[in-house]
Structure formats: structure tokens, C-alpha cells
């Protein structure tokens, strides 16, 4: 199929935006969004919104129907990202407690190190707790990433009670006077009942200020269902999309935002601790549209 750029160019070059050319544009957008892993239902929803607005809206003076449609496409996609502010803030709470949650292998541990480093550079004093009692060498992995950056890591490799480890880690960092504590947890998915119960226990006992759902940028159509299950068990405050340096474009995150109402705050763009950026909605939308 043609790239969306060509579809858009053809649309903008056509003499006028009639129903047929708008339909052709919508088809091109649908294909692009599906290839970027946007959930089928969301693609259909967005198509209806574009279709409805394209011909029912009153055109502002001097604006062509075509330009209006292009603007509508962009607006509808931005709307899917939710209106919530996506900037990190502790709101003055100290220590501000963040808990990272997500499916196995999505990049939680690496992101714990990235977020800790990012916040340290921003001037916060940060401590990281390894509350993953399942993954072999999880604590070593965090230390390996953070010791070179002088960011303290708390862990108890012999203890298999994550709630206890997290509580003691929190106390340890409170004593140290840190501004932010990041808690790394074990990978889990919604079919693992005992792990979902453990997550609820962590939420209940630690009462984090922000639960961040880590979403793999390569995840497909299941992203929404998983995000909904996480959110039902523990309220998700924000989302971080990882591995956007791969062929994945992170379209699954739109469904996660829809299911949790949480904004995307950061993205991971590589394996190094520095490969971490605040989320940029415009460039994300541009890459979804291919």
C-alpha cells in the first residue's frame, strides 16, 4: 500500500475534499494506525469522528475543507492521548513514591534506572528499591545500572516478601531524606492471579503516590485489555512506553491511555540509561501516521 504521506499528499492535491477523497484518506489513515498497533476499535472510532466532523463542521474563514480535515485528523489523535498534563511533578510531597508495574520483559528495571537518572539530573535526590523477588539477579541488574551513577539501590536478595522489602526500603530512603523513591516490581500479567494479588498488596501497604504502567512499544492488540486489568487492580497514574527505538511505534499505548485515563509521561528509546525522554505527543502522533 502507499505510505500515508502519499495518501495525504494526494488528498491535499485534489481539487476539493469530496466524500470519496475523504474516504480514501480515512482508509490510508486506518491502515497506518493498524500498522502502528492501534487497537481496531480505536481505529474505527477515530474514523467515525473524522467522517462526522469532516463534513459537518463549519469552516473557519479562509480555511479550505482539505486543510480542515487534516487538522481534524491531528486533533482526534491528540484527543486519544487524553487531556491530562504529562509533566512529572512531585507536588511537593517528600518522599514521592513511584511504583513501576508491567508485563514481563517490558523494560521496568531498565526504566527504573532511566527514570532515577533523569530525576537526579533534574535535581532530585533519588533512591531505588528492588521489590522483585522473582527475577533472578534483579537486584544485581539494578545495582549494575545505578552504582556507576551513584544512585542508591535498596534490596534484600534473600527475602522473598516484596511488601516487606519495599516497606523497609521506603523507610531506609525516608531516613536518607530522598525526594523520590522508585520501586521496581516483578513482571506480571493478568492471568497470574497470585501476582495480581501481590500487586494489590503492594499498593495497599505502600500507597505509592504514582503507579506507572510500563508498556512495551512493540505490544500489539492486547495492550488495552492488559492495561485495563492492571488499572482495575491498582490505579495507574501514568504510562511509560519503552523500546520506541525498534520497529514498534507504540500504538498499543493509545488503548492503554483509553483504558486507564493515564497520560504518557516518558518514552524509552534504547538500552542505555540515557535513552529516555519526556513524551512528545506531536512526534508520537506523526510516527503513528507513518
Amino acid at each position: 500500500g502507499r505510505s500515508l504521506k502519499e495518501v495525504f499528499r494526494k488528498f491535499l492535491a485534489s481539487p476539493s475534499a469530496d466524500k470519496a477523497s475523504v474516504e480514501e484518506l480515512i482508509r490510508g489513515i486506518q491502515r497506518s494506525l493498524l500498522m502502528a498497533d492501534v487497537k481496531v476499535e480505536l481505529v474505527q472510532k477515530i474514523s467515525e469522528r473524522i467522517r462526522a466532523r469532516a463534513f459537518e463542521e463549519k469552516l473557519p474563514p479562509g480555511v479550505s475543507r482539505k486543510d480542515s480535515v487534516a487538522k481534524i485528523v491531528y486533533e482526534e489523535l491528540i484527543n486519544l492521548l487524553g487531556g491530562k498534563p504529562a509533566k512529572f511533578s512531585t507536588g511537593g510531597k517528600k518522599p514521592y513514591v513511584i511504583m513501576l508495574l508491567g508485563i514481563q520483559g517490558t523494560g521496568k528495571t531498565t526504566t527504573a534506572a532511566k527514570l532515577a537518572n533523569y530525576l537526579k539530573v533534574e535535581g532530585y535526590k533519588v533512591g531505588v528499591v528492588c521489590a522483585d523477588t522473582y527475577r533472578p539477579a534483579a537486584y544485581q541488574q539494578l545495582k549494575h545500572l545505578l552504582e556507576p551513577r551513584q544512585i542508591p539501590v535498596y534490596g534484600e536478595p534473600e527475602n522473598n516478601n516484596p511488601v516487606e522489602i519495599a516497606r523497609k526500603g521506603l523507610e531506609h530512603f525516608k531516613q536518607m531524606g530522598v525526594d523520590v523513591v522508585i520501586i521496581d516490581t516483578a513482571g506480571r500479567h493478568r492471568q497470574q492471579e497470585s501476582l495480581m494479588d501481590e500487586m494489590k498488596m503492594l499498593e495497599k501497604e505502600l500507597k505509592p503516590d504514582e503507579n506507572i504502567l510500563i508498556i512495551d512499544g512493540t505490544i500489539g492488540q492486547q495492550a488495552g485489555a492488559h492495561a485495563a486489568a492492571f488499572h482495575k487492580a491498582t490505579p495507574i497514574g501514568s504510562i511509560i512506553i519503552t523500546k520506541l527505538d525498534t520497529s514498534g511505534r507504540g500504538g498499543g499505548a493509545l488503548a492503554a491511555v483509553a483504558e486507564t485515563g493515564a497520560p504518557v509521561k516518558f518514552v524509552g528509546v534504547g538500552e542505555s540509561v540515557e535513552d529516555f525522554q519526556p513524551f512528545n505527543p506531536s512526534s508520537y502522533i506523526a510516527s503513528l501516521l507513518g
Partner: protein
Amino acid sequence: AKPSPKEVENVLSDFYLQLIAADVAVETADAIVNSLRHSLLEMDVPRFGDREAVLKEVLKKSIESLIKVADVNHVLKRVDEARKQGRPAVILFVGPNGSGKTTTVVKLAHYLRKRGYSVILASADTFRAGAIEQLETLGQRAGFMVVSQSYGADPAAVAVDALNKASSMRVNVVLIDTAGRTEVDRGLLEEMRKLKRVVKPDFVIYTGDALAGNAAVQQAKMFDEVVGIDYVILSKVDADAKGGSAISISHSTGKPLLFLGVGQELDDLEDKPAEKLLEALGF
């Protein structure tokens, strides 16, 4: 009677969306739908009754033919041949970041040992934080020797070290774990090609994440093009994955599915992937 083009298009567009919702990649779903259109138009459907149901049934049956599955006995036969030749069989594991390679290596070692083979593991991920300790811990717990060096060591050196130990100890199989890497980094793919050239494995197994969407195609394709893969293992099928990526990967690379990873424990390796996948796809 022959179905009308409109009937065929109705059935095909529903089928298309079902494939996409099951995580079949867009380009794969396009190709499947296009290849089925002609045979559907040529079908004989009853004059009355639910004609579309007849077409839908044909589409459902076509799903089975889309999953390319390997016979694990072919792998075991090769291991037996290597044993006769007095050398260890070598299997190289490659794949994208976090797809389950390290865990799968230990699962496969356990699977082979249950069938009477001795196995040692090579920790050739000398890059990622905690990778060596992770495989060493998993190996120790399961009772497998892990050959490792230090971080920053040449993965090929670790692999050769393991091969030499296996030869001198008369071990049947060496499984080589490597670092996750992105298909977008040509240099990292080339590193894998070089490792393969040095080690000369009997098989290269690509481990992919069953939850991956459209990226699954490009990932598997690039690994196959640059490194060359023989088999595919799809992990995390237990995470409610529909498994459509198995179809996308089969379709784009032609390489067969050997196992499914269905959990985090040693036994969670499914060697009858077709049945499990058809159940997951829910067609």
C-alpha cells in the same frame, strides 16, 4: 451457486479485522485475504440459507494451514547425529530485547535433559546488566553448568569456551544465550552473524514475544535476513496472547514454530504449538 462478490467482500472484511484483532500483522492479513479471495469466489455455496456461513467455515479452516510448525524430533535427531560424530550439538538463541531468550534457554535444557541428553549453557550475553548472574542463577537452580566470562568479553569467546568444555566433558548439547538486540541496529545484527560464523551452530532459534504486534514481522525478518534463523519460539503465550504473531512470522520468514513459552517455570515449554495456538487464536 457461486457467491456474489459482495458476499465474499463482507466475509473477507470481517475476517480481516478478526486477524488484526488476533495480532496478525497488517501486511500478513492483507496477503492472506488477497490469497483467499479467488478461491472464495470460485466456491460452491447453497442457493439458500446462510451462504456466508459456508464461506466463513472455509476461512476458519485456512487458519490451520497458516501456522507453520516444526517437528521437534528433527532437532533431537540432529543431536543424536552429533553424538555419533563425537561432538556436542550447538544451538544459538537470538531475538529482540526481553522476548524470553534466557528463560527459554533453561527451559529447553530441562526439556532435553528429560529426554536423556546432557546440556551445558553458555552465557554469551556479556552486555546487559545482570545477564550473566541471571543465567547462572537459573542454571544453578536447574542443575546445569553455565560457562561464562566477564561483562564486556567477546560473546564468541564465551561460546567457544563452552564448546571446548562440552567437547572435553562429552556433553551432548550446548545452548548459547545471547543479548537481546533491536532489528534496527544493523551493527548488532552483524555481531550475531559473526558469532554464528565462528560457532557454526546446528540450529539458530529465534525467540519472539507472543504479545508483539506488527513489529514482530520486521523483527523476525531482519534477524532471518542478517543472521539466518532455523526455528521460532514464541514466549509469553500464557499472557493471554492471541498468537497472531506466529502467523505473521511464519508467513514472512517461512521459518517454523518449534515451541511456545507458556509461563516462567522450567516446564512451561509447549512442544505441540499448533493446538495451543489454534485455541489461543479462537477462530
